[in-house]
């Protein structure tokens, strides 16, 4: 299991590919620092930076790239067969991949969010954002990991979820919020450190339970899918 995790991590980071993950968090912290340097009130810049960029773009896009990268790219170029033919329980493979994906996403998103939150309001707010981001990273990673087993085009389905479901519908149709991970993250962070920047629309129990359902349910279903996984050639 540790070997699978090691190989997966090297697949993500090898050949300086880790640098590709840097611009998003740097932009997040950079913007917060610029606003701080110009003495803009956090009440003004908090909303666009923390929610508009951090929770709506950095967290889901990082999770999408990492979550589909750990498994989807191996399915895509067929190297997954090397892991599948080893005498390893499929459960261990999924758990290792999930661990790497969620860990990388959590670090990439939670650290800059903590810095931004601490700059915007208080260390407590920063911690709240970081906790929310970790919960979100688990839920998103499980979802995108599952997607890369369910469909041949996991990135596009994931993008449709982020752009259309959370982005477009989440703004106009309030009912979709119950199934939006972004709203869970906002709900959790808002409960830990209430602030004017965040506007949690789902209650804490709903947010926690639903994120757990996404994370655990997604992982379990992914294990089930990998158990009866069939290799397919290049299609469409």
């Amino acid at each position, binding site marked *: 299991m540790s070997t699978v995790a090691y190989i997966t991590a090297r697949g993500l980071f090898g050949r300086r590919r880790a640098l590709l993950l840097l611009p998003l968090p740097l*932009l997040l912290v950079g913007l917060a620092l610029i606003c701080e340097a110009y003495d803009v009130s956090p009440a003004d810049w908090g909303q666009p930076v923390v929610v508009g*960029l951090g929770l709506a773009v950095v967290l889901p896009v990082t999770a999408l790239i990492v979550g589909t990268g750990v498994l989807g790219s191996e399915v895509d170029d067929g190297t997954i067969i090397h892991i599948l033919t080893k005498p390893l329980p499929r459960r261990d493979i999924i758990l290792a991949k999930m661990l790497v994906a969620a860990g990388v996403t959590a670090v990439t998103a939670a650290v800059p969010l903590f810095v931004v939150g601490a700059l915007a309001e208080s260390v407590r707010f920063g911690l709240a954002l970081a906790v929310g981001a970790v919960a979100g990273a688990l839920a998103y990673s499980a979802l995108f990991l599952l997607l890369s087993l369910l469909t041949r085009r996991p990135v596009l389905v994931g*993008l449709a979820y982020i752009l259309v479901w959370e982005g477009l519908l989440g703004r106009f149709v309030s009912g979709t919020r119950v199934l939006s991970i972004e709203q869970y993250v906002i709900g959790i962070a808002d409960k830990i450190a209430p602030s004017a920047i965040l506007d949690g629309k789902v209650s804490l129990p709903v947010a926690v339970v639903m994120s757990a359902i996404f994370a655990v349910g997604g992982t379990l279903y992914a294990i089930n899918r990998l158990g009866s996984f069939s290799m397919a050639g290049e299609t469409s």
Partner: protein
Amino acid sequence: MSDAGVIHDIGYQRYEGPRLGRAAVFGALYQHGLRASFGLGRSIKAKIFPWLVVGIVLLVAVINAAARAQFDVILFDYFEFDSTISWLIIFFVAIVAPELMSRDMRAGVLPLYFSRPLRAADYVGAKVASLVTAVFLLLGVPQLIMFLTAAFTLDGGIGKVWEEFYGALLPGWAYSLLWAVLFASISLLIASLTGKRAFAAGGIVAFFLMTTPVVGVLSILPSETAQDLAGLVSPMSLINGVYIWLADGVDLGLDVGRFGPIYGIEAFCLVAVALLLLLARYRKVASL
């Protein structure tokens, strides 16, 4: 038949018909690119995503047109239409650009293409042209639907229809073309960097999405210059700015102040640089 030195004549013949040149290759690539954009001639799986976007966009246009025809309410005009569906345009180029660029790299057909009388400029030109056409169709056709609905319900005869066509639809189409050119060149450049469609799609979306909130932040900085220049950061607001400058005072919800020309220059430079980088990218292609 039995010349000296010939052991077996197994009947291979040389092709002696007309040979089509660069123009034909360009035309074929363009046509194939345009068809591939919408998954035409491919399996149903390749059609799902482009036509999902097309369906939503058409739905938005029809709702808008119906609201105008029935209740005389204009939800958004031809310009606002483009901005309203900007996220869907991002999604569309994230689907199509990797399809046009990354697939060729992945399938290893680039050396085959370039062993024909095809230059890098032709290849890049054909791909850009087909994506520009595809995005323009995505925007222009719904605008045409909105116009046709308006034309049949407007009171005031042919003069009013002409006014709507000349004063509203044509500028709207020009605006859509601007969107198409900018989005196509940038997304194709990103897609040409990797052979993996998944990474290319993620990169395109990350680029377009992460620039948008920056505009929101810069526009609240306490300097008027910074506020007027904020729109330069994101392609979407850049296009808005260019049009505000060209149309001189159209209100698209962005303040460009006296920096209009800078928006125009940046848009031009952005497209030019993206195309030049694409050309540079295809000066040499790896065989694998």
